[in-house]
């Protein structure tokens, strides 16, 4: 599974290598989701991801813009050390909240007014 949508939440199950090739494919595959449903929350699940370059940063900031106007939030989960270095260096943690688990994200979302 590449992504999942439910109740205005879009979860990206990111690939092992998040480069320009993979980022473009993900953008294309999920473009329709934003037309069909009001997405307020984005979750980037890095469980499988071992490699990422600045194209991954472009993917996240691009999707951030699509939910930001609606008062949405963007989360990262299951981030390993290698990926954490890249995310830190890019400065993206100003807009991306890193959480330990999907459960922790759900709790944050509920606090922010989300209900299933």
């Amino acid at each position, binding site marked *: 599974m590449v992504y999942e949508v439910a109740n205005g939440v879009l979860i990206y199950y990111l690939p092992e290598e998040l480069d320009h090739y993979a980022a473009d494919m993900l953008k294309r595959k999920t473009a329709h989701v934003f037309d069909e449903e009001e997405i307020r929350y984005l979750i980037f699940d890095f469980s499988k991801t071992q*490699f990422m370059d*600045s194209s991954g940063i472009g993917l996240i900031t691009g999707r951030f813009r699509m939910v930001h106007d609606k008062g949405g939030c963007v989360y990262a989960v299951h981030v390993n050390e*290698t990926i954490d270095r890249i995310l830190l260096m890019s400065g993206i943690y100003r807009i991306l909240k890193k959480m330990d688990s999907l459960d922790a994200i759900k709790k944050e979302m509920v606090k922010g007014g989300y209900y299933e």
Partner: protein
Amino acid sequence: MNSANEMNVEFDSVAKNESFARVIVASFITSTNPTLEEVSDIKTAVSEAVTNAIIHGYEKGAGKIWIRTVVEDRSVYIEVRDKGIGIADVKQAMEPLFTTKPEEERSGMGFSFMEAFMDRLEVESAAGEGTVVKMWKEIGAPAPHYE
């Protein structure tokens, strides 16, 4: 003392080759005995340079990309070359967050990443002349630390 060991490779300018490019460079430099972190740094830098050649150099059209890698003891030198449109203003292109393609959601961080993950970076280019990205890294040097 080891003598220098050199690798040259030529491949088509297509996005699926980004992965191939960083993997061959990563395998070629194993003789320098890098840490996982150093391998990851080099893979990221190569990926950035090759992606730039594909997206900006050839503007996603047909073309060839060349990578030359030289290792000597624990020094790594990598050159990524294209014969694409070139960069008119290299200084501006290297500014953090500068991008000519914001509509494609390019982060503008490519050169910043290359600079951060390698010890030294040089870019030679002119409009219509293609681009050469030269990168150096000393394996076993103290790792940079990011706050």
